[in-house]
């Protein structure tokens, strides 16, 4: 059996002390305590029982019973021992416990402490004294050492995703048509096609489907299904959306990149894939030919970046079993991060929620101009209003803040931007929309600016858990050009925005590193920007902080959306102590 260890600051409580005195810990009367749950009973319409939630934990109170004695022949006395104990009390400190079973050492962060003594004449006569040490500690224990968890992104181009073909769509084996398709499946120029001639009355919708069955594909190691799909149309009908089923169950799209649709199929074994294309018409009767074309079905191990490598969504592993505090670092080896740097940390709840709007663009009177210098990879004028569809399944409950990255199209100055959020099911508006109008600060006609444009509950209607409802966000603004927009959920996520500059970075100048530091028992939270990795030249980001919320770091992982307008593939990492309920496991 390994040796146990117990230290309070620099004082060894298991036989340590000084040349003058010795401290021993008694097992009777020693307890590490427990964090006290903060439970709230919520009023509800339950007829029996009550809804109770745990909002957090209050501090734990640990007690250590020690016996102190002077070392024989040292000339020391019991007062020296008491002085040695007091030197470690009444201040923030660390209590480190190493169990005798060989498991890792556990640290309890002490906020304050005090000494309790009761006179015992027998002990006094025999040259020793008993004390109870009372320690008020943070509720969770932690590991001894910090860990650094990097996210994908090292300041250089990330490795290309590994693509594993499932069906190259060069043969009709395993394919069938469904829905309103009347011809196919056939192979046309290297792709599977199903088609139909449609005559649609006003507002009518028809869906064609191409079904690939007979598969047995495990998604382990390569969890994202990638399908290359195109809707071809002739006549007076219009394509109105693509959706998917895997093993007969609707699966929402995680990311759209051009004609590639990415679905999160983590943990699945795929037996069938159904590709559905919908067509509708203008408010007059329409006739035309609808063709659904599937070019490829593959699996990939990573999702693509959102339009450009200036905007990345990553998952960060958090060790431990309890919420912790972490320093979040964004950095690039050579480029300043830019102005309007965004770090949005949010719960990894298994949904496909990603705040970015461009990836959800569903249409509009205008079109997107490709521009690699833009965060979204493109830009478009809001004078021809675009709209963006977010499935309800990808919008966690909670209030949302809307933010745009915009510039004046022609004439610099303040602009008016109007937005609406409308719930729709099957293309039909449901309930009342949420709307807002904002007058921006003066916009440049060359530089893009982050502008918060409104806040509200985007999920305007109560729907079922498996609802197909979407929230359509429409943006309008005369003489305004949009790069990217975001809908940030402020219940499950925390948004930090800071300016780091755009010129070549240097110590004391613009910054290629941003450090977002949490509150600890020793320090207040802060946001620093700098040049050196060791933070030796880092300074408070000051007036350049456009948004601050302390990140919530919950194990086993959190998601991180970063926008670094001036830096490609900026690296992101978190440095944290793993926290545990009572005892560290690593």
């Amino acid at each position: 059996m390994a040796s146990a260890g117990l230290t309070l600051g620099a004082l060894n409580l298991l036989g340590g002390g000084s040349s003058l005195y010795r401290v021993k810990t008694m097992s009777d009367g020693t307890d590490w305590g427990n964090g006290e749950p903060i439970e709230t009973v919520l009023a509800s319409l339950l007829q029996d029982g009550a809804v109770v939630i745990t909002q957090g934990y209050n501090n734990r109170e640990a007690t250590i019973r020690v016996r102190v004695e002077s070392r024989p022949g040292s000339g020391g006395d019991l007062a020296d021992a008491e002085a040695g104990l007091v030197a470690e009390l009444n201040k923030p400190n660390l209590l480190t416990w190493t169990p005798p079973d060989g498991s890792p050492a556990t640290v309890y962060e002490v906020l304050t402490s005090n000494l309790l003594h009761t006179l015992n004449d027998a002990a006094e006569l025999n040259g020793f004294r008993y004390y109870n040490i009372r320690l008020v500690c943070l509720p969770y224990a932690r590991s001894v050492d910090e860990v650094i968890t990097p996210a994908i992104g090292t300041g250089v181009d990330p490795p290309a995703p590994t693509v594993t073909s499932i069906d190259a769509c060069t043969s009709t084996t395993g394919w069938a048509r469904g829905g309103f398709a009347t011809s196919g499946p056939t192979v046309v120029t290297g792709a599977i096609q199903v088609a139909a001639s449609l005559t649609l009355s006003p507002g009518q919708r028809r869906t064609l489907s191409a079904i690939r069955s007979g598969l047995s594909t495990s998604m382990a190691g390569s969890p994202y299904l990638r399908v290359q799909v195109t809707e071809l149309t002739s006549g007076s009908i219009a394509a109105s959306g693509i959706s998917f089923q895997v093993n007969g169950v609707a699966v929402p799209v995680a990311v759209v990149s051009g004609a590639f649709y990415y679905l999160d199929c983590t943990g699945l074994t795929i037996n069938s894939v159904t590709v559905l294309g919908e067509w509708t018409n203008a408010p007059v009767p329409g006739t035309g030919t609808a063709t659904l074309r599937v070019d490829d079905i593959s699996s990939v191990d990573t999702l693509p970046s959102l339009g450009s490598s200036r905007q990345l969504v990553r998952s960060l592993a958090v060790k431990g079993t309890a919420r912790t505090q972490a320093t979040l670092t964004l950095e690039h080896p050579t480029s300043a991060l830019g102005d309007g740097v965004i770090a949005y940390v949010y719960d990894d709840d298994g949904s496909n929620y990603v705040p970015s709007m461009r990836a959800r663009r569903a249409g509009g009177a205008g079109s997107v101009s490709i521009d690699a210098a833009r965060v979204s990879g493109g830009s478009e004028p809001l004078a021809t209003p675009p709209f963006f569809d977010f499935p309800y399944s990808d919008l966690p409950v909670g209030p949302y803040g809307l933010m745009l990255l915009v510039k004046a199209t022609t004439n610099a100055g303040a602009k008016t931007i109007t937005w609406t959020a409308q719930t729709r099911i099957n293309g039909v508006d449901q309930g009342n929309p949420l709307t807002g109008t904002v007058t921006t600060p003066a916009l440049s006609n060359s530089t893009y600016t982050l502008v918060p444009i409104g806040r509200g509950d985007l999920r305007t209607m109560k729907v079922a858990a498996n609802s197909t409802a979407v929230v359509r966000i429409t943006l309008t603004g005369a003489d305004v050009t949009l790069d990217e927009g975001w809908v940030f959920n402020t219940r499950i996520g925390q948004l930090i925005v800071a300016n780091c500059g755009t010129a070549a970075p240097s110590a004391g100048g613009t910054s290629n590193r941003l450090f977002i530091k949490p509150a600890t028992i020793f320090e207040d939270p802060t946001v620093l920007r700098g040049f050196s990795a060791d933070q030796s030249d880092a300074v408070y980001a000051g007036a350049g902080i456009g948004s601050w919320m302390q990140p919530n770091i919950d194990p086993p992982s959190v998601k991180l959306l970063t926008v670094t307008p001036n830096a490609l593939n900026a690296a992101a990492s978190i440095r944290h102590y793993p926290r545990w309920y009572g005892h560290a496991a690593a």
Partner: protein
Amino acid sequence: MSKGLRVAGDWLDLTVGRFSELTNSTRFGGGDWEISWKMQLPIGARPRQLRPGALVEVMDGPWVLRSGYLTEPNWVDGTFAASGFCREAEQLLAFDSALNSTLRADVAVDRGAVRGWRVTRDATVPTTALGAADTGEGLNYIAAVLDAAADQAGKFWTVRADRAVRFETAPTTPTLHIKPGVAQLGVVDQDYCRTVYVAYCDSGDRGKVKKVSATDASAPENREVGVDATVLLPITTAKAQSMANGILAKGKAKWGWTGTIELGEHELYSDGGERVDLWSVQAGQMARVHGAFDDQVNLSGATSLDVVLGDTSHVDESGVISVSPIGTVKNSLQAAIEQALSVAA
């Protein structure tokens, strides 16, 4: 997630220290009414941000939820409060650019902004004079001019988080729903009338004192109240009549409500049936109280009562908000004095 505080442009917990018990209240009219919080600062600490008059903003990320200006801090027990910018109008006089007492709401706002009132003017602020002329004698505070203009228009003036002075109409469609069994509003028949008489100096008849009246026949009791508008110098009969109509339109012909409603997050819903974020609930919204009675009018079988929220109060992360409808009779001594003083002004 707890909200942030930005004072004098600085994030408080990044530059000064941690705060707790963040509380806010709103009113209709008025808008953002008060923000308060607590901080434990070292003895003798006087952070430069916490100076009286500093701009205080409650933040949700970069979005401003409430705004105000810091009033006298209490360094002893660490309590701090900020008043909404509507209340600063009670301390600024209504002048035009030549320091004449203006009787125009738009001029009062614009010139007040020039002299340091940190607001902008929305297009809903009236641009016509209260009386026969744009200026008058005597000294009026901006709040008094705005109150009178709002009464004439049958509206409520507010300054909300964006610090824009607006004239708002009480809504007629509920956007909030309170679940049944939560609220039952008591009524009391003080501060109420069926008929309003307004005495005024007729600018069209050599300033002769005349009277106009407005009556709400649906009011349950026959009670009259007089308003002396002769202090406003000569005004037209039309203006006097709109003043009488406006006072009735703002609920004067209704019994006053008593008490407040305390609502948990699970007791308040949007018109789409979803739970609402409590910070989005503000005075001036209409709520449908399901299962409540109206002791004054025949609801014809309706099982709910629609009220416009006149007061809200909320402590951040408490999960509870207190609301009361327009026309709530304030029974505290302070509130009674406040009403008497506002009438005298």
